């Protein structure tokens, strides 16, 4: 923790940043995003297993408030660095415009309000089996190496369970899950990779995706979002955490990631130079479904 604070202070002293995005303790004893805009704020910064939030969401150029702060330093875990890499890859930000403070991470809890130590019962599912304990995209790397968190990986099991259902059962399941959606679009707003100036869901001429929270609108929205994030989703879990209806949106995004991995051998990385699978192609891509 002290290492992080000292580094943050040094960055301010050397005038390399105007603000640092990190984490701080909140009233409820959990953590929340912090915006340190002066050297005195650096002593508020913390980093531990409660630092769930993906701060890359704040870096999109559409967040004019944050952009107004000036040159940013950002505290990133490996998963957050993947989002930063995505933003760089897709020309949303320039690598040289930000200072990345990479954190060695031993996994985070599923909810930042959990104040107990990390244990197999409260660890975020995405952290179990996550192979990146530290980012490869960073300017400074902070902390001691940490072991991978223990816990039972239930996500793939859930995916295979759904895949093995009959189509009717799957449709019934998604009708129930997506039927809860009230179309607040919080999943989009918090997503670091949803940076479009005007989202297709907001378009009215024509209204491609109906804004009403009925079956038509909800399926169109969630299928399209999953497709638009295929090969881009960094698995930070922000959409699931933000969803007021508690829809396990990650399932759709995981499925899309698995499809992309199986078909095109691609997994999301924090290497900005590696092209994304949609937007690229190979002449010999599988086309078994095309007559």
């Amino acid at each position, binding site marked *: 923790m002290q290492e992080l604070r000292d580094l943050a202070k040094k960055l301010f002293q050397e005038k390399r940043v105007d603000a640092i995005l990190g984490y701080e303790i909140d009233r409820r004893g959990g953590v929340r995003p912090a915006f340190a805009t002066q050297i005195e704020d650096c002593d508020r910064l913390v980093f531990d297993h409660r630092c769930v939030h993906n701060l890359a969401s704040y870096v999109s150029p559409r967040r004019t408030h944050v952009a107004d702060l000036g040159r940013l330093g950002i505290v990133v875990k490996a998963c957050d660095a993947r989002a930063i890499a995505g933003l760089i890859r897709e020309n949303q930000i320039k690598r040289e415009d930000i200072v990345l403070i990479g954190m060695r991470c031993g996994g985070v809890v599923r909810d930042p309000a959990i104040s107990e130590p990390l244990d197999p019962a409260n660890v975020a599912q995405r952290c179990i089996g996550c192979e990146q304990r530290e980012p490869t995209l960073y300017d400074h790397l902070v902390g001691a190496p940490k072991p991978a968190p223990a816990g039972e990986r239930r996500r793939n099991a859930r995916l295979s369970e*759904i*895949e093995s*259902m009959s*189509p*009717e*059962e*799957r*449709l*019934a*399941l*998604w009708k129930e899950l*997506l039927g809860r959606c009230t179309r607040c679009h919080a999943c989009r707003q918090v997503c670091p990779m949803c940076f479009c100036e005007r989202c*297709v869901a907001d378009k009215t001429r024509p209204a*491609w*995706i*109906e804004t009403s929270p009925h*079956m*038509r609108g909800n*399926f*169109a929205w969630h*299928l*399209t979002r*999953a*497709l638009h994030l*295929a090969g881009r989703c960094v698995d930070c879990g922000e959409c699931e955490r933000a969803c007021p209806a508690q829809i396990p949106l990650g399932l*759709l995004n995981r*499925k*899309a990631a698995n*499809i*992309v991995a199986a*078909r*095109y051998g691609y997994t999301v990385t924090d290497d900005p130079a590696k092209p994304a*699978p*949609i*937007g690229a*192609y*190979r*002449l010999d*891509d*599988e*086309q078994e*479904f*095309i*007559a």
Partner: protein
Amino acid sequence: MSDTSFEPSIVAFVCNWCTYTGADLAGTSRITMAPNVRIIRLPCTGRIDTLFIIKAFERGADGVIVSGCHPADCHYTAGNYHARRRFAIFRELMDFVGIDPLRVTFSWVSASEGGKWADVVNTATERVRKFGPFQMYPKPAEYVGE
């Protein structure tokens, strides 16, 4: 509605340069084929957003055909390669949420393949006829009407 009386409505999104011309050829060659398909012409398969497919189902289609130039024949060099990846992912996602991906037929039909187009149309129509009407969305409730 009994299965025998069900006539599926099928929307075909086709590229201007190959399949549309191929369908035209099928017509001028007087090849008989199922009359259930309505063609919407687009510049390229690369222009066919998956939302077009979703919209077709929302608006009452029972099946969809997506067709364009064979690989290496794209008028815009690579539109169909990009489309191929997009559709590959999309149809697996459809399957994942329980919508039968076979309701959507993907094919490459060149300008000279009038016969193949007729085959695609007939196969798709027969398949969708067997599936029955697309019933995922509740039908519009009672409207004011005569």
